[in-house]
């Protein structure tokens, strides 16, 4: 059984969605508080979406200084940042580039078509700073079919295979239960499981 840790910061709001989705998929999950050093073993650690520290200064800027992020087992355990988690990983320098304000300055919240593993999947996005720029070396694992936010090359998700770090703006955890209308998030978690 996959053992997953989900880091929770002040202002995180997708940790329960992520836990429920992973529990449904049969993973063993637990929360990790921002102020705790990560000392236990996990197969994968998630940095979920939300507004850590109220997005003050800039999204993800403050969270990068927490004991949990500073003690991430980089290179040893698969790390996955979703939305605000992706922003935290770029701010921490664990993934290259930066996520700036969407080109139209709107907070965008909608279901979007994405190219993922040579097929189209549909996942929700919900962000204000998702305009990705400055990739340096990582593989692109997910692109917007239509560029919704101004990101370089339609990039929605990247993967540093060497250090085992994934970042993506779309929310796969919101697309797992068929009652919610979308289930393509399962394909993303299947991919993550295969990368452990």
């Amino acid at each position, binding site marked *: 059984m996959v053992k997953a840790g989900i880091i929770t910061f002040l202002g995180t709001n997708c940790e329960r969605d992520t836990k429920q989705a992973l529990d449904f998929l049969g993973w063993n999950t637990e929360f990790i508080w921002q102020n705790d050093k990560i000392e236990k073993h996990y197969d994968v650690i998630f940095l979920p979406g939300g507004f850590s520290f109220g997005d003050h200064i*800039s999204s993800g800027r403050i969270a990068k*200084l927490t004991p949990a992020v500073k003690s991430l087992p980089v290179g040893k355990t698969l790390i996955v940042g979703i939305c605000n988690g992706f922003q935290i990983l*770029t701010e921490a320098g664990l993934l*290259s580039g930066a996520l*700036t304000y*969407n080109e139209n300055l709107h907070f965008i919240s909608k279901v979007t078509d994405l190219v993922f593993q040579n097929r189209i999947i549909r996942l929700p996005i919900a962000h204000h700073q998702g*305009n990705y720029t400055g990739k340096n070396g990582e593989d692109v694992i997910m692109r917007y079919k239509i560029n919704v936010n*101004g990101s370089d090359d339609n990039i929605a998700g990247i993967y540093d295979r060497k250090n085992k770090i994934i970042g993506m703006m779309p929310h796969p955890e919101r697309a797992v239960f068929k009652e919610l209308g979308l289930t393509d998030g399962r394909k993303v978690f299947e991919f993550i499981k295969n990368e452990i």
Partner: protein
Amino acid sequence: MNEFEAVVNVKLKDTIKDIKAQTLEQAVHNLISVKNLKCRVGSRYSIKFEAKDKKEAEHIIKTIADEILSNSVIEEYEILW
């Protein structure tokens, strides 16, 4: 210990599209007729603290600016004392 006060001005690098500035320019043009308008948008932080001497103060404020107030991938800053 000596008291120091620094102002840190952070703005996007010129190579990064400043979307807020573009919005500001649009608003200015809606407000008043201006020729060759060029705006840049940034943040200003005023920070007071105590340090042993100027050298230590500079180190402290540079660390804060590098790690919290700016992201060197897209932003640059100036420190005013």
